[in-house]
Structure formats: C-alpha cells, structure tokens
C-alpha cells in the first residue's frame, strides 16, 4: 500500500513487524506480575551450546514455554539440567524479537527437591518478616564483656571445637556451657528448640547457635519456624552461626546477630582478655599521669602565689589605707579649725549686737533706771507712793531718793 491508499482508508499508524515485537516486549517487561517470578516445570529439549547459553522448554501436562538461561546465570548451577528433570526456575518473562516468541529468561534454577525447600524458605521468611520478627527493634545487644557464654550445637560438631578454640585463645578463663543437640536430620528442630530453651534459663550472657557448613538439606533445621521462634523468644542475646558465609538462614535473620562462621561467632562474643588488660593498664597510667600533672600544676600555682609582692612585702597591704587615713586626718583638722574660727567670729558679732542693746549705752546717753529700795524695777508712777524710798541707777553710780509727789501724765 502506498501513502495515498492509506490516507484513503483513514489509516494513520502502521507498525513494522519489528516495532510490534519491540513494543510487546516492553509491555511484558513492564508487568511486575511476570518479572522475577518462580515457575515450576519439567525440562524438555534441553541444549547447551558450547557450554555457553542453555535453551530448553519447561512443560507440564498440557502447556509449554520456551526458556533461555544465559552463561552468566548458568555457570553457578551446582547440577546439570537434563530432559525430564523437575525444576523450579526464577526468571523474567520476555520476548525474543527475531522470532516473536515469548520466553522465560531464567536467572536461577533448582532441582525440584531443593526447589520445594526454597519455596518453603521464601514463604516462612515472608511470613516472619510480616510479623516483624526480623526487625532491628527486637535485636538485643551482644554484651561486650560476657562472663559465661552458651553454645547450642552438637557435642561432636567441628563448630563446637572452633568456638572453644577461639574462646580459649581470646579469653583463657572464660566459662563455656554447651547445650547439646543434634543439628541435622529429621526431628532435630524440636531438639534444637529444647536446647535453646534450656540454655536460656541458665545464667549465660550470650548464646551461640551453631553448626558448620553443609548442604541446604543439612542446614534445613535452622530454616524451621519452631527454631526461628525459639531464637526470637529467648531472653539471652543469640548469635546465629550456621553454615558458610553464603548461607543465609531464617535463624540468621531472626537472631540478634549473625556470624558467618562458628569461629567468627566466638570472636564476636568473646573479648580479648589481653586487650582488656592492656586497656586497664592504659587507664591506670593515664589516671596516674593526670594526677601527677594536677599535683604539679597546684605546686606551680603555689610557688607563683608565694612569689607575688603581697607575700614578699605584706606591709604593702597597709600602704594605701595608711595614706588615705593620713589624708583624712589632715582634712578633718583643717575643717575643725575652720569651723572654730567661724564660731569665734559669730560669737564676737553677737556680743557686739548684745552690747548695742544693753541699758548701759542708753544710760550713757543720759537715761536713768529707777528701782525700789528692794531693787525692784519701777516701770510706772502707779507703783510709787509719796514717801517711798527709791534708788536711781546711773552709769557712774546711784542716788537714794524719797518721793515727794506722784504726778501721773494725762496721756495714759
């Protein structure tokens, strides 16, 4: 069809086949429901070209899907897939653009037996995670200085020997209590639970739950729910050290601490005694030096104090006040003299004024004072009768007189 025809038909967009495949592939890739999923099935038409990529189909009774597992993923397989094998695969649904067929790109593959365990593991992990059993807020602190450590493992386990060796090396007189239990095989899980519970009641500061490396089946008891719950419920802090570093078990997730190996667990739990003694010694020396320093500083301060002028010539303390006192004395003396001088002048002035007021000066001007013969001052003619004897006082002497006549002025 050419452009004109298309326009006549009203058609705007036409995909190329490739564009369509690319688009559908992108749709599949975007759908989270079919990315990183587990699929169970039987292998058929298995091919492994030049030991590189693996191509096969997964089928069940009435359905089939094309699968590819690339070199990067299949090189870590610990078994050889073959036709007829029941497997469990984890992968992403995609589409191979050149042939337009949809397929499963597989990242991980497990034989069915193992696969079942994996699924159980994933299921329990999800359940316990939802309950919050792995949350940090429930993690107890491993004590830094335990007095006694507890171990839950088998009496014959290499793990026990490793833990004891490392503990004795780090802290030769550390007390160890083993709570023995089988650590593999069917029925071991409840025994592990009992061993944990028994040890939890003893007076140990930390418990190491341990067993050495092994197959997934060997380690399986530590993925059991009862064991997980016993670890979670224990009052004593627990270090989980099960399998190798690459094995992450439920017991590791739920324990207060996870150690990659039994030896590492002992290193985590047990402090190095020599180091602690060294530390104590250092603290002792520091305290001694600091005290010596304080004494020296005090001594120096005392010496400096003694050198100060006040202690060398204590009389200096009085120098200033003495001078002040002298100044005050001089001032007071001056003031008193001034005061007395003023008082003297006042007095003299008052005497002058008093003198001006005394009868003496009046009498000097010619007035006299008349008294009765009993020396009573006479102020009115009414006080005198004819024949009364009178004294007349003058400035230069006195007269004695007798009243001849009383003449009263008419004005008054």
């Amino acid at each position, binding site marked *: 069809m050419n452009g004109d025809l298309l326009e006549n038909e009203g058609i705007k967009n036409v995909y190329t086949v490739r564009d369509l495949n690319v688009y559908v592939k992108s749709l599949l890739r975007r759908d989270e429901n079919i990315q990183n999923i587990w699929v169970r099935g039987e292998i058929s038409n298995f091919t492994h070209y030049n030991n590189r990529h693996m191509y096969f189909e997964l089928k069940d009774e009435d359905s089939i899907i094309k699968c590819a597992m690339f070199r990067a993923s299949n090189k870590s397989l610990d078994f050889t897939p073959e036709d007829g094998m029941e497997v469990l695969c984890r992968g992403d649904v995609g589409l191979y653009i050149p042939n337009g067929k949809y397929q499963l790109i597989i990242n991980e593959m497990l034989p069915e037996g193992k696969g079942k365990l994996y699924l159980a593991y994933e299921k329990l992990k999800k359940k316990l995670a939802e309950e919050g059993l792995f949350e940090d807020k429930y993690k107890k602190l491993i004590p830094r200085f335990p007095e006694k450590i507890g171990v839950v493992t088998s009496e014959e386990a290499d793990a026990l020997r490793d833990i004891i060796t490392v503990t004795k090396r780090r802290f030769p*007189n550390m007390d160890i*209590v083993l709570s*023995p239990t089988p650590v593999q095989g069917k029925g071991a899980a409840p025994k592990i639970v009992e*061993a944990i519970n028994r040890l939890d009641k003893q007076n140990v500061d930390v418990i190491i739950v341990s067993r050495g490396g092994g197959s997934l089946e060997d380690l399986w008891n530590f993925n059991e729910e009862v064991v997980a719950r016993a670890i979670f419920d224990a009052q004593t802090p627990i270090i989980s050290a099960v399998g190798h570093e690459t094995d992450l078990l439920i017991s590791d997730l739920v324990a207060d601490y996870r150690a990659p190996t039994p030896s590492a667990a002992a290193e985590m739990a047990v402090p190095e005694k020599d180091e602690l003694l060294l530390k*104590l010694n250092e603290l002792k020396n520091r305290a001694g030096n600091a005290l010596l*320093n*304080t004494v020296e500083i005090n001594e120096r301060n005392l010496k400096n104090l003694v050198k100060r002028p006040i202690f060398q010539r204590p009389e200096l303390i009085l120098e200033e006040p003495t001078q002040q006192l002298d100044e005050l004395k001089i001032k007071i003396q001056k003031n008193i003299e001034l005061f007395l001088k003023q008082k003297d002048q006042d007095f003299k002035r008052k005497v002058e004024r008093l003198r001006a007021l005394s009868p003496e000066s009046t009498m000097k001007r010619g007035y006299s004072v008349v008294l009765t013969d009993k020396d009573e001052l006479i102020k009115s003619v009414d006080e005198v009768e004819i024949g009364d004897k009178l004294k007349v006082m003058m400035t230069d002497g006195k007269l004695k007189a007798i009243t001849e006549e009383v003449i009263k002025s008419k004005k008054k």
Partner: protein
Amino acid sequence: MQFEEALDELEIINEKLERNQVSLEDALQMYERGMKLIEHCENRLDKAKGEIKKLTEEGCNTKMEDLDIK
C-alpha cells in the same frame, strides 16, 4: 557493678583529671576511685574459672556436667 559501667566511669574520671579543672582534693579522691575501679575490673577478668560444662537432661531436671573435648 558491670565491667562496662566501670570502664565508662574510668574513662570519665580520666577525662576530668586530664582537663586539670578539679581541685587537688577532688583529684586525689577521683584517683582513688579510679584505682578501685581498675582493681574491680581486674578481679572481674580473673573471676571466671575457664570451666567447660554441658547441660544434660535427667527426667525434668537440667544437670550440669564437665565436658570432655575429644
């Protein structure tokens, strides 16, 4: 007293002493306290006897017995 508490207190005492801001009397007292704490810690480190025991079940009772390591 816990070992850890004793260590913490020792650290505090040392810091105070090293800052030289305490009186001589206080410094002497703190030093004395520090030496007691160190003695306590040293005793604590030697307290354990290095015993290796195992728990055994006898009926309903938990028993403790010596463990022989092969």
